[in-house]
């Protein structure tokens, strides 16, 4: 090897590259794009998204990832360009005849190209650094800059350059090679990158890479395996190019060396890749094994654990624990042996009882303990279990489908590595899911529908950690802290029986305040106090804010916060948890503790800068000054409501933006889920139904806005699914999107008890429920106990109701008519009357929620949504008609009628009221008039209505929809191919008739219509009615009115949507007539088209797509016999 030659080639290669316009334009362009991006998403001057600011690694990571794809492709181009240039002219031949080996030549080229790209990377990082340090709110860490350069950029560069070198030396056509490289890149970027355990992800786009200020890069192994494989593969390809280059070899030694290196590197690369795949497969297989074990063992009875005394030491990424557990045989038979679950990463060294060692049999997470004699009923056995090791995450979330575990946790360009526990030398974070202390039997989740033997217990924890770390766990008041030679020991004692405890130890700073005898603490990493600048003026007011928020939550919920302290603890961004069917509780929230992700990266209310910006904008808009105190109080309220109380879910928040994201930070579980629990083999979701009943007391109804974009809300999709599939099967049917299943779960669970409440009266019901909760606090309730309670309370066969609720596919449906709102005089006062008619024509009992919001409060709202001002649930038995009258004191802004689980689409009807007129002559009506509904009485023999949902309706398309457009729409997620109902794409109406829904459309339960963009008149729809008698009929068309898209139309200066006319063709006995309907004068509802003579039998009316408006809708036609 001749270093002088390599150096010379590299030097001139770099010089030539730097002077080539292709490279200059590319790098300047890339640099500029990234600079603009950084200013837009990372700097204070722009509306930067919080996650870009929250993670110290976000900015360098996003930049390097984007640059990586860009430079990977460009490097391929330039590498081929430079190799091609070498062959094209004889120029290089004058160099080829110089004395150096081919190895020197290729290495020189490689060194030249990578050096220049290296400088580009460094230049980009420098730019990021400047923005990061001086123009961003983001905390700073230098490590990401260095690590990501090595992990992301270099392997990709080597791989792409190596592949292009090899291809160009073999194929010799630059165009062909570049096309191959481009096709390869696109294939990886669009299709293959995320597949097969990310092994094909040469650009490092899918592989989770993040740097956390808590634990750095986290588990390095998969990173090193995949990125190492690409680096080695690149090296191998480069060495191969030495052999395939066209220049006659000079040195057998170096050519052989290149051959060896090529074979060696590629072999190493393959080994690394195989190791990664093996690791991943082993993990999967191991998880399966653990799952099997849990499921098998869940069938055995075991003792419960009622008391824990845990002594834990954190030593060099391992914990060393002695748990003294008191097991009690609460089964109805004597037990020969008992078993518990303990993390398989923890090795049990001994189990003793009163100093004598006890036999035990360990199989992964399951440990069977065989005491000398039998454990009689209600007998207890105290065991000292000594164990040591590190936590194995694979035992966690055994019940969660692999698909969900694999779902990427991404924040734009950043793929966060999910982790469920942390056991580092200076950071420890263990939740019950980690099974870091013995859990009686198997955990609840590990073997659905087994209920688990874990009960409420008393806990004492002594945790010794290196000096400087703060330990956080459940405790009564402040923990006792003892400093000793091995570090610092924290001693915790639980104030009451708890279902579980967690343990977190780290280098935390703490802020705390006592309000009404509850201590509120915030634990965060030093330097992560980004919130301080937003709360400069709040000061003591925080006490009042907390009190107000607490009261505002506790009063409607009807339950008091049960503990004397509440901590919010910052944990790494990657800490993740999953939703479960049978409880709303998640690992993110433990008794007394809420874990918030690093810098509140995915919180809704933690984006304080956004809150500040929207506050400023609101002030400007309303032209009124608000004091800093008012504004800052707003930020605080917003944070608590959005993240901790889930009452104010921001549209920009991650929960709205992405459907994969499961962690929740709701305090709710501290009020209900951790206080009592029903275990039911038959109806595992029963516990969730009770939680949902309470949760809805404090819940803000969901927006239904998504219909316009998505066609249907998740609830509606869930209802459509529930018409086909019983609830119990739907929950486990993975073919149905998780969102839809989730919506079905929430909706069904709320519905069960709310319907009962509406049936027997809200006051009696809620009182009974509250006392049930109080009586069963801190216990696990058997299903039979609850059934008995519920049956007595509702005076019904509750088990039968639950069974039907669980297994039936028959849904109620409602007609809602004559919604009115006006002012009335009530004695001295002017009040607001809300009236509507409600019919349940189905044979299933149902319930309807009524939510009313007042007008005057609108102005007070800061952002997002609030709870409604008036709520009520109506019981709507099968085959009944109701006239409902509600009187409220304030002017009404809108009325929302939610139909829970029903056939109705839209499932929530919204009525917005503008100014309400006073009607002096109207009599005040408050209450409900109930009448029975007779299907026959409503049938009008002389009236025929054909809706687009009916069989008589048919849509004919003259042309197929453009496939490319459909594909693109699918790609951007705007449209789903198999959806029955589509969103209203008024900005880009479809070329074929598509069904869409809106409450303004006509329909029995489903208010839908067809729509398309205007055409040449060849695409038609037709309504056919089978008329019994021949004769003259009045023909009407149902028009949805003009209100829709008013704002859009205003913006587009009136040339939009439904202006113009519709062209009907009425076919009658004398032939057919073209009948236009001018949309300027139409009213919402039936519009008269004319009177025509029809024969008996089938008659039809057509509507063409020819119109001067941009879109045309087709809804319903009515024939009325004269």
């Amino acid at each position, binding site marked *: 090897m001749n270093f*002088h*030659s390599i150096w*010379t*080639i590299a030097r*001139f290669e770099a*010089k*030539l590259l730097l*002077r*080539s316009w292709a490279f200059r334009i590319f790098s300047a362009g890339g640099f500029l794009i990234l600079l603009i991006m950084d200013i837009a998403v990372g700097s204070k001057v722009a509306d930067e998204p919080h996650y870009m600011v929250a993670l110290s690694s976000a900015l360098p990571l996003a930049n390097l990832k984007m640059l990586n794809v860009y430079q990977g492709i460009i490097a391929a181009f330039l590498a081929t360009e430079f190799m091609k240039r070498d062959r094209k*002219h*004889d*120029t290089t*031949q*004058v*160099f*080829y*005849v*110089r*004395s*150096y*080996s081919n190895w020197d030549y290729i290495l020189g080229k490689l060194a030249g190209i990578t050096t220049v790209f290296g400088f580009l990377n460094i230049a980009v990082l420098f730019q990021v650094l400047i923005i990061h340090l001086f123009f961003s709110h983001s905390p700073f860490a230098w490590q990401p800059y260095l690590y990501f350069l090595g992990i992301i950029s270099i392997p990709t560069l080597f791989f792409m350059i190596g592949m292009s070198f090899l291809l160009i030396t073999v194929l010799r056509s630059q165009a062909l090679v570049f096309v191959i490289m481009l096709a390869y890149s696109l294939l990886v970027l669009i299709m293959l990158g995320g597949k097969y355990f990310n092994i094909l992800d040469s650009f490092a786009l899918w592989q989770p890479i993040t740097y956390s200020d808590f634990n750095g890069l986290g588990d390095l192994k998969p990173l090193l395996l995949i990125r190492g494989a690409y680096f080695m593969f690149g090296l191998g390809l480069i060495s191969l190019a030495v052999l395939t280059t066209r*220049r*006659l*070899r*000079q*040195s057998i030694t170096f050519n052989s060396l290149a051959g060896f290196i090529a074979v060696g590197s590629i072999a190493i690369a393959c080994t690394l890749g195989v190791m990664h795949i093996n690791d991943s497969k082993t993990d999967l297989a191991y998880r399966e094994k653990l799952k099997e074990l849990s499921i098998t063992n869940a069938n055995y009875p075991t003792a419960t654990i009622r008391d824990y005394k845990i002594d834990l030491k954190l030593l060099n990424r391992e914990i060393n624990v002695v748990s003294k557990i008191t097991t009690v045989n609460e089964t109805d038979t004597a037990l020969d042996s008992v078993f518990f679950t303990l993390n398989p990463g923890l090795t049990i060294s001994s189990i003793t009882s009163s100093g004598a060692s006890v036999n035990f049999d360990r199989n992964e997470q399951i440990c069977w303990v065989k005491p000398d004699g039998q454990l009689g009923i209600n007998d207890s056995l105290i065991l000292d279990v000594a164990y040591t090791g590190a936590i194995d995450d694979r035992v966690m979330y055994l019940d969660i489908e692999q698909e969900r575990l694999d779902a990427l946790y991404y924040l734009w360009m950043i793929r966060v590595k999910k982790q469920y526990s942390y056991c580092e030398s200076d950071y420890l974070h263990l939740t019950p899911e980690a099974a870091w202390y013995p859990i009686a039997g198997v955990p609840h989740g590990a073997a659905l529908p087994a209920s688990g033997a874990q009960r409420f217990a008393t806990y004492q924890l002594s945790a010794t950690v290196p000096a400087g770390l703060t330990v956080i766990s459940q405790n009564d008041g402040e923990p006792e802290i003892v400093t000793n030679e091995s570090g610092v020991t924290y001693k915790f004692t639980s104030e009451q029986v708890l279902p579980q405890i967690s343990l977190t130890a780290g280098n935390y700073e703490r802020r705390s305040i006592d309000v009404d005898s509850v201590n509120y603490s915030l634990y965060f990493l030093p330097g992560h106090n980004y919130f301080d600048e937003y709360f400069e003026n709040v000061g003591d007011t925080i006490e009042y804010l907390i009190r107000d928020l607490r009261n505002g939550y506790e009063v409607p919920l009807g339950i008091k916060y049960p503990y004397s302290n509440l901590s919010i603890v910052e944990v790494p961004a990657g800490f993740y948890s999953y939703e479960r069917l049978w409880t709303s509780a998640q690992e993110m929230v433990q008794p007394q503790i809420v874990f918030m992700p690093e810098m509140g990266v995915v919180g809704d209310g933690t984006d304080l800068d956004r809150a500040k910006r929207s506050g400023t904008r609101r002030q400007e808009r309303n032209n009124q000054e608000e004091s800093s105190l008012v504004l800052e109080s707003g930020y605080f309220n917003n944070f608590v409501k959005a993240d901790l109380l889930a009452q104010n879910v921001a549209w920009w928040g991650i929960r709205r933006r992405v459907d994969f994201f499961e962690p929740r930070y709701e305090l709710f579980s501290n009020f209900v889920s951790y206080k009592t629990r029903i275990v039911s083999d038959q109806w595992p979701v029963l516990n969730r139904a009770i939680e949902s009943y309470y949760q809805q007391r404090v819940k803000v109804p969901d927006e239904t806005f998504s219909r316009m974009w998505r066609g249907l809300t998740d609830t509606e999709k869930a209802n459509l699914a529930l018409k086909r599939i019983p609830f119990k099967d739907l929950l486990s049917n993975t073919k149905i999107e998780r969102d839809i299943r989730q919506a079905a779960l929430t909706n069904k669970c709320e519905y069960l008890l709310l319907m009962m409440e509406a049936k027997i009266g809200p006051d009696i019901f809620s009182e009974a429920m509250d006392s049930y909760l109080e009586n069963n606090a801190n216990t696990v309730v058997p299903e039979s106990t609850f059934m008995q309670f519920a049956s007595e309370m509702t005076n019904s066969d509750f088990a039968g109701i639950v069974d039907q609720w669980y297994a039936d596919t028959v849904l109620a449906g409602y007609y809602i008519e004559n919604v009115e709102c006006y002012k009335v005089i009530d004695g001295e006062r002017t009040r607001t009357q809300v009236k509507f008619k409600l019919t349940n024509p189905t044979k299933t009992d149902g319930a309807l929620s009524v939510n009313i919001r007042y007008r005057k409060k609108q102005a007070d709202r800061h952002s997002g949504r609030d709870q409604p001002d008036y709520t009520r649930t109506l019981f709507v038995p099968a085959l009944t008609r109701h006239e409902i009258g509600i009187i409220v004191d304030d002017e009404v802004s809108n009325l929302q009628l939610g139909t829970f689980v029903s056939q109705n689409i839209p499932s929530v009807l919204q009525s917005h009221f503008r100014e309400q007129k006073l009607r002096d002559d109207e009599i005040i009506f408050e209450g409900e008039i109930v009448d029975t509904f007779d299907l026959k009485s409503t049938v009008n023999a002389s009236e025929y209505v054909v809706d687009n949902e009916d069989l008589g309706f048919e849509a004919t398309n003259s042309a197929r929809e453009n496939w490319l457009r459909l594909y693109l729409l699918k790609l951007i997620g705007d449209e789903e191919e198999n959806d029955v109902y589509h969103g209203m794409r008024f900005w880009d109406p479809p070329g074929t008739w598509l069904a869409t829904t809106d409450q303004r459309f006509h329909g029995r339960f489903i208010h839908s219509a067809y729509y398309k963009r205007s055409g040449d008149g060849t695409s038609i729809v037709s309504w056919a009615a089978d008329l019994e008698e021949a004769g003259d009929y009045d023909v009407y068309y149902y028009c949805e009115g003009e209100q829709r898209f008013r704002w859009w139309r205003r913006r587009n200066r009136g040339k939009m949507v439904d202006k113009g006319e519709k062209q009907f063709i009425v076919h009658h006995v004398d032939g057919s007539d073209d009948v236009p309907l001018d949309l300027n004068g139409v009213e919402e509802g039936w519009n008269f088209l004319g009177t025509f003579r029809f024969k008996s039998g089938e008659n039809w009316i057509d509507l063409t797509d020819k119109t001067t408006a941009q879109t045309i809708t087709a809804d319903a036609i009515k024939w009325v016999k004269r």
Partner: protein
Amino acid sequence: MQITINNLSKQYAGGKFALRNIDLTINSGMFGLLGPNGAGKTTLIRILVTLLKPSEGKVKINELDLQKDRREIRKMIGYLPQDFATFSKLHVWEFLDYAGAMSGIKSRKKRMSEVDRLLEEVGLFDVRDRRADKLSGGMKRRLGIAQTLIGEPSVMIVDEPTVGLDPHERLRFRNLLADLSRKEMIIILSTHIVGDISSTCTDVALLNNGKISFNGSPDELVASAQGKVWRIVSSSLEMDSIRVKYPVISAVPAEEGFELRVVANEKPGPNAQVVEPNLEDAYIHFMQSTGYDMNLESGDNGW
């Protein structure tokens, strides 16, 4: 200094022989490799400069084997290819610097002085800072010569260096080569332009159709054409018939029509007179005698 070529053949993938059983010995001094386009000159040269592998045969430079001792041989060679172009983004001095560094001059100082010396020598010192792609054709060719000379090669191989140059540059280039030929080194000059070698070459080989058809001094070549070159004055009508029969080297308009210079084994016409042959006449005569179609009138050879 000696290059020995033994039984050298090159057969391309399609089966076509570019070179067939070449035997040559080249000694120090300027060696002219003459032959028409497609004769195999470039193939031979590419083999000599280690860009191409021969199919058969051996080449030795002194005692070094061209196949086995590429490292040493490449250190000895300076090569100027036929369509030499420079890296357009490099300055003239940078290009030479690159070539110098690759030829093994490690010291930057030494390299720079060599660069300047050679630029002076080829007359490019004034444009040393000019971008290489801004040079004229002749200047580029001179830069090419400079880069072959850097690192003091003992074998310099120049392929068709004067093609496309204007007469002034061509002359300048020939003088440059003539100067170089005084050094103790082998210069192989491949060309199809006889004028390039007439003045300077000590030895010349004629390559035709992959074979050596003559190897000797230029004087020997000229001598072989003695009595075969004629001057003939003809009318324009007669000229056409002469052209069909014999290669006409030149046709100068004269009072009675044209004065033609013709290569012919027998007297081409009654008024033809024998004239002293020059190298070009000899080349044409030789090529014709080896069966090469020397019909010099482009209009009549089927185009």
